[in-house]
């Protein structure tokens, strides 16, 4: 008999024991201490930031009393160039947050209601291990999924591969950058990378279509954009909203939402028709050009004008601007590209545009990143899973190279797939699924059908309220983690060394994975006492050591391959043809259009407005909405509404409205209105990551609205399963619907 899984807002614990005990609460007070810390002696340990995926390397400074004072960038780090972004600087807030989880929690039912009770690690691991063994015995370890984001996932990945599942998923794929991974692989043979291999600091023209660089604080790229501005580079921004970067652009194209494909195709048309493309490069490095030329012949700027509302002469001018700067031109691949369900195709158009401009592999365009591989610590070889998410898909989403988390959710709901393949257990580490995923109803349904749900987090985020077991992780400032080796202009590594001991009863993921493995009889996969042993072993094999890395933090290695193509060099791309595939035979074989096509997308009905969402530079979505330093900068999101719309609805500045979407879903919390000219009259805009409904997040609870709640409709990309989310429309409710 299954007990229904209630969403337990961890506040039901009541005693407040889940928070830091009174004596430890002083840590927050210490931010206000009178200590003149400028003159006291400070020590430092190297780390790389975990507040977002950029993982900038830096130094954690602390004093003799082991109180963390500040975190600043490492000068040698290519991700940050020595300067952290506001979230990195405010990262100490994640450590000092008094709402942090401090003890493992186990769900138990009591007289009809459910609550969490504190437990020891041993007890928590026993519960988890027993359930996992049960699932393995009853159907197979393959029916468990690890859903991860961030460094914790690295350790649990080893564990779950050892356990025997192939369902290792990250929402950052199908809910975010997945489409461009596949589109660039199809076109260039490799994805643009993370950090992207965009040579912004030397570019002459940066084209941003669907990127709000500057509001998305991708540290290295924002820095390079500032450098480019200093050097006089021109920026072309395509955005229905007057974004920060739009205000710094030479050309801002206020495009009608959902029509970007038409613009991209028209640009390709202009470059080809006016013979502005890089002829030599195209001849040397691409195939399918003639098919492309034929395909875009009718896609003139005039045709695009009718669709996008961008005037034909502007389309031509901007295309010429790009060509003029080529090859030092970048059409940015974007980051979150899951918009309308044809995202792989649109991203292909971006790739093709870059290709005919000749920017790939050229200075000021896309450089060729190089990394250094970190030796694998010797562990036994895991059994290959007999089936995974792909099996149950039966050929759907043929080009999904990673598992779309929405597929994992679907495959967890009873009746959606063959019971043999149904996913019965979730282990979620470092991602707040209810706010991350669209279609909250599916998430909630899936959760009810699970036999086991474990959540690993530093904060009592909403996802923890659904779990059977909650494991409190310590923050990045308190632990060792895997060596960061992100390919960049120069191969480099960075280490994360704890500055202080973990608070309360929190533990690093490296310890959790090891102990849980022991309980599951898989201890041999974690043959270390402390993760620092692994690091030292790996570093010594790379010609360094943990001691050296503690002193320098970041180590850069010389390149072995050229960073740009040499003049006239013919490069072998990792595509089937060995060349840049403007025309994709592979897509044709799979039954998809080999060249991007424009499809019209749904427009908002009368009285509704397209919901656009994005980032604010001082937050990492929901991850930081409780951080004391960062909520001091921005404590809630606002709904951007055009003044014309505001006057139709009689809305006043800072008025609270509830949102209702096309499916009748109403937001839990109201959101304040910002009346601004910066947004089109057919859309509204809000920053993602607010509207938390877990009361234990004292600073975040009830502030702003949750846009994910409004995203009940998605358009799935048939090529790799991404969830296109920009197809929801909202209207305003001026009075509390409750």
């Amino acid at each position: 008999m299954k007990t229904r899984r209630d969403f337990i807002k961890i506040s039901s614990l009541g005693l407040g024991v889940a928070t830091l005990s009174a004596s430890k609460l002083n840590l927050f007070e210490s931010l206000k201490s009178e200590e003149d810390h400028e003159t006291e002696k400070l020590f430092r340990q190297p780390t790389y930031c975990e507040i977002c995926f950029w993982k900038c390397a830096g130094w954690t400074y602390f004093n003799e009393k082991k109180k963390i004072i500040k975190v600043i960038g490492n000068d040698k780090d290519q991700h940050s160039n020595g300067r952290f972004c506001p979230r990195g600087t405010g990262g100490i807030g994640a450590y000092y947050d008094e709402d942090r989880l401090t003890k493992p929690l186990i769900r138990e039912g009591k007289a009809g209601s459910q609550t969490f009770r504190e437990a020891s690690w041993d007890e928590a691991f026993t519960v988890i291990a027993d359930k996992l063994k049960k699932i393995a015995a009853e159907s197979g370890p393959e029916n468990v999924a690890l859903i991860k984001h961030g460094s914790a996932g690295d350790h649990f990945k080893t564990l779950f591969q050892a356990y025997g599942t192939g369902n290792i998923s990250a929402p950052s794929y199908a809910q975010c950058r997945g489409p461009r991974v596949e589109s660039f692989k199809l076109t260039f043979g490799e994805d643009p990378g993370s950090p992207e291999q965009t040579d912004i600091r030397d570019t002459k023209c940066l084209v941003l279509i669907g990127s709000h660089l500057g509001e998305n604080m991708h540290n290295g790229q924002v820095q390079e954009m500032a450098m480019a501005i200093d050097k006089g580079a021109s920026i072309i921004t395509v955005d229905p909203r007057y974004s920060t970067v739009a205000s710094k652009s030479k050309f801002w194209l206020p495009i009608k939402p959902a029509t970007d494909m038409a613009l991209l195709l028209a640009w390709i048309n202009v470059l080809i028709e006016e013979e502005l493309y890089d002829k030599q490069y195209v001849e040397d490095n691409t195939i399918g050009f003639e098919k492309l030329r034929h395909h875009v012949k009718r896609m003139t700027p005039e045709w695009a004008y009718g669709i996008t509302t961008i005037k034909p002469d502007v389309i031509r001018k901007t295309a010429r601007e790009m060509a003029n700067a080529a090859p030092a031109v970048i059409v940015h691949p974007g980051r979150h590209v899951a918009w309308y369900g044809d995202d792989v195709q649109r991203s292909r158009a971006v790739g093709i545009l870059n290709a005919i401009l000749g920017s790939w592999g050229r200075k000021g365009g896309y450089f060729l990143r190089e990394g250094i591989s970190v030796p694998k610590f010797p562990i036994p070889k895991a059994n290959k899973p007999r089936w995974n998410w792909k099996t149950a898909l039966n050929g759907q989403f043929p080009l999904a190279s990673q598992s779309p988390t929405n597929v994992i959710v679907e495959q967890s709901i009873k009746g959606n797939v063959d019971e043999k393949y149904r996913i019965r257990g979730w282990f979620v580490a470092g991602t707040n699924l209810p706010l991350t995923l669209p279609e909250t109803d599916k998430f909630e349904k899936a959760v009810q059908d699970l036999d086991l749900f474990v959540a690993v987090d530093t904060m009592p985020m909403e996802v923890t309220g659904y779990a059977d077991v909650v494991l409190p992780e310590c923050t990045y400032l308190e632990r060792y983690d895997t060596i960061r080796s992100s390919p960049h202009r120069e191969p480099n590594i960075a280490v994360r060394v704890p500055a202080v001991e973990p608070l309360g009863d929190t533990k690093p993921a490296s310890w959790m994975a090891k102990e849980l493995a022991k309980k599951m009889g898989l201890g041999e996969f974690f043959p270390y006492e402390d993760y620092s042993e692994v690091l030292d072993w790996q570093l010594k094999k790379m010609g360094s050591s943990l001691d050296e890395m503690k002193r320098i933090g970041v180590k850069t290695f010389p390149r072995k391959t050229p960073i740009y193509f040499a003049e006239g060099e013919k490069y072998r791309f990792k595509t089937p043809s060995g060349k840049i595939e403007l025309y994709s035979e592979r897509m044709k074989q799979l039954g998809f259009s080999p060249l991007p096509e424009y499809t019209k997308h749904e427009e908002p009905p009368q009285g509704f407005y397209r919901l656009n969402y994005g980032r604010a530079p001082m937050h990492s979505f929901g991850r930081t909405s409780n951080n004391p330093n960062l909520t001091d900068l921005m404590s809630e999101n606002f709904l951007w509404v055009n003044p014309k719309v505001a006057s139709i609805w009689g809305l006043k500045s800072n008025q609270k409205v509830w949102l209702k979407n096309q499916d009748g879903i109403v937001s839990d919390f109201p959101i304040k209105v910002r009346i601004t000219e910066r947004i089109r009259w057919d859309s509204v805009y809000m920053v993602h990551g607010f509207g938390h409904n877990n009361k234990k997040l004292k600073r975040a609870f009830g502030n702003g609205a949750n846009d994910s709640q409004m995203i009940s409709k998605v358009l799935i990309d048939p090529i790799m399963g991404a969830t296109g989310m920009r197809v929801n429309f909202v209207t305003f409710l001026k009075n509390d619907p409750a």
Partner: protein
Amino acid sequence: MKEELFVSGRNLPNIDPQLHVWHWPIPVYLFLGGLSAGILFFAALYVIKNKGKDLPDSYKKALFVPPVALVLGLIALLFDLTHLFYSWRLFTTIRLESPMSWGAWTLLTITPLAFLWAASNIKLLFPQWDWKYDWIKAIFKFWNENLKYIVWLVILLSVILGIYTGILLSAFNARPLWNTSILGPLFLSSALSGGAAVLIFFSNNEEEKKIFVKLSMLLIVIEGFLFTHMFMGFLASNQVQLEAAEMFLGGDYTIHFWIFDVIVGLIIPLVLELIWLRKQNFSLKIVALLLLFGGIMMRFTMVHAGQAARYLY
């Protein structure tokens, strides 16, 4: 459309969204200080004009107000200081450029003088009073003998006390409403008006009352003139001052200003005084109270509205 907003979530207490660093203690002090200044001024003026004659009882009664008012005002001021423990620092230095320093030192000197003067008339309240100690009796003997010289100091200090509060505000040119040199004379005439009101209140003599009623009417007219002059200046000045004036001409403080400050505080007393001069058939105590009420209301309005007008944003 022009939009200007904070991106970094600035919300400083007492400063955002609107400056409100000075709360009720400040207008209360300004009123009490001005009132004391007015009373002391007229008392000193009487002594100067009527050499040798003893102060009439109404003056003596009125002179009991300044010590109380000054002490209450001082307490109100200290209440407003956020770093009270260090307030003694005010008297470690004289800063000629700071009207507040002027005020601190003026208060320091005029308060004991007000106490002494009131104490020297204590027999009015307590006829059996005896200054037991000889040295105290010597002080008052000195006071009474040299009063005709001391009052020159008192008159100077009372004028400074009455006018410096206006100069203090007008020195803040960052607050458009206060950035006018009319505030000094305005506050001084309001202070004198308050002093006259108290004297009217305590007066029993019809002749004396007539003099002060006429004086009060003159002061009301002067205040009205100064207000008009001030508004005309604002409305002809730059954008921020125009916006400051508009607070009283349709903005948030319109009702407060016109009803409390102008109608109740100036016009009704003026009319009543006019009627009294003709008929003299009702108690002037009401008029005095209305004048005092108008005085304190005016200061509340000026202090609050002044903080509402700003330069940027």
